[in-house]
């Protein structure tokens, strides 16, 4: 088991955001976490990344408890995140953004190799590497956010709403690239509003509702599940 979340409770002050969730991720999987706004998807990712501390429960990475470690240590261990809203460094160049992604890597040759790979995955970033990241289009910024997370050479990549605000064609391209990234051995946890695209890509999925996991299944099964269809896929399963 690469990543295991056991009975995770997270609170913002007096408000409980997660009420004891359990999930696990195997090496090489793509996991989709679905749910409406406020279900606790981003909170889950932030807690895994070490930006939030659990009130109760455990997170294990390769059987080691990690929920008390600071965020910067986790990146070094191989957990990288492309956060919601991209959060790229707008006044820095594309290249500087990518280099920051590799902040924890000391092996220069490895960093250069990863960078070449990212420029292959997203050729537009190579064209714009001296441009300020804030001047990129939304889709390019998303590519930069993913590329930046990959620069850490992660074992597991956490993606928070990579399709947010992008044109459908671009979403398709980005999901195709995510699949390519996965085939190189990077495990992916994907939080998405675009449930259909996410489930088509993922091996397994979790559905969250107000701080709890209400459903867990293989992706195809979730796609076929009438409840999921009605709630997250616009009820089109019967028609297809």
């Amino acid at each position, binding site marked *: 088991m690469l990543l295991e979340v056991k009975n995770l409770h997270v609170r913002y002050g007096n408000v409980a955001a997660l009420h004891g969730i359990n999930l696990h991720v195997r090496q090489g999987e793509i996991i989709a976490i679905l749910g409406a706004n406020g279900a606790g998807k981003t909170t889950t990712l932030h807690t895994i*990344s*070490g*930006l939030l501390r659990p009130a109760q429960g455990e997170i294990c990475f390769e059987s080691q408890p990690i929920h008390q470690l*600071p*965020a*910067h240590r986790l*990146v*070094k261990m191989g957990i*990288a*995140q492309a*956060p919601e*809203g991209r*959060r*790229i*460094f*707008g*006044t*820095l160049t594309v290249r*500087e953004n990518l*280099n*920051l*992604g590799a*902040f*924890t890597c000391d092996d220069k040759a490895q960093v250069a190799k990863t960078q070449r790979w990212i420029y292959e995955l997203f050729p537009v970033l190579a064209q714009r590497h001296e441009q*300020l990241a*804030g*001047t*990129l*289009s*939304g889709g390019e*910024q998303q590519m930069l956010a993913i590329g*930046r*997370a990959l620069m*850490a050479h992660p074992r597991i990549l956490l993606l928070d709403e990579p399709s947010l*605000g992008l044109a459908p064609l671009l979403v398709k391209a980005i999901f195709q690239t995510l699949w390519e990234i996965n085939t190189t051995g990077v495990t992916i946890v994907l939080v998405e509003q675009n449930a259909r695209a996410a489930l088509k890509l993922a091996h397994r999925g979790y559905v969250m509702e107000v701080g709890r996991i209400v459903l867990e299944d293989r992706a195809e099964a979730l796609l076929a599940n009438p409840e999921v269809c009605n709630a997250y896929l616009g009820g089109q399963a019967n028609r297809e």
Partner: protein
Amino acid sequence: MEEFIQQLTNGLAVGGIYALIALGYTMVYGVLKLINFAHGDLFTYGAYLGLTLLTSLALTDRLGFTLGMVVLVLMVMGLVAVLGAILERAAYRPLRESPRLSAVVSALGASIFLQNALMLIYGARFQVYPDNILPTATLNIFGLYLPLMRVLIVLASVLMMIVLYVFIQKTRIGTAIRAAAIDQGAARLMGIDVNRVILMVFLLGPALGGIAGLMVGLYYGQVNFTMGWVYGMKAFTAAILGGIGNIPGAMVGGLLLGVIEALGAAYLSIAWKDAIAFCVLILILIIRPTGLLGERVADKI
């Protein structure tokens, strides 16, 4: 013309000092969004430490003027940097998760504490730098007679600004500082230890502020335990003028403010010196609140 150049170079010397202090304000603001009101007092500590080290260790007698000065500068920088780190630990870190206002009150408290501690140690009177150690020579540059000290101050402050700029722009830790200033959460997701970045900023800023204090002592020959207040306010104005949080902005703002002040004092009235500086602050806040170099590009949502 002669008069003008004298005033201009004087303005550049004072402006260089303002710029060095302003860098401390702007770097701390950049990362923590906090005005470190105790920064002016760290500047004063630089001036007093310089005086004490200069007289008690007799560095210039033992090592010669140039080497002695270099050692003095390094010692003052190091000591004030340590003070800055202690200040961060004691006054700001415990309040990291508290509302912004708590940290501001803590900053003001730290300022009062530092100022009074200095008064208790040295007394409330003006302290005088020994004038027999310092060079009183003047340089003849194309027929202009400029005091050596003034030229040295301009050169040293510009040199330090260049070094800082290169450090911030080109090094790994410099890039980490810039990243943490833009988005702390995202910086942590990159594996940057934000606490270390903050510590770094509280070493660099005070080191530069301490040097500025030493320069004032060397330039004017006398120091007082309250001088950090006026210099701090001027440097704060300079940081706003250039765009708070913007490092080149603090440099440009400092030099510009020094020159404006010097020329205003010379051609209007010396009595208006401080008023001119603060009129600049008011004007910039009205006309261009982001400062001269504030905000290069907006982030797209």
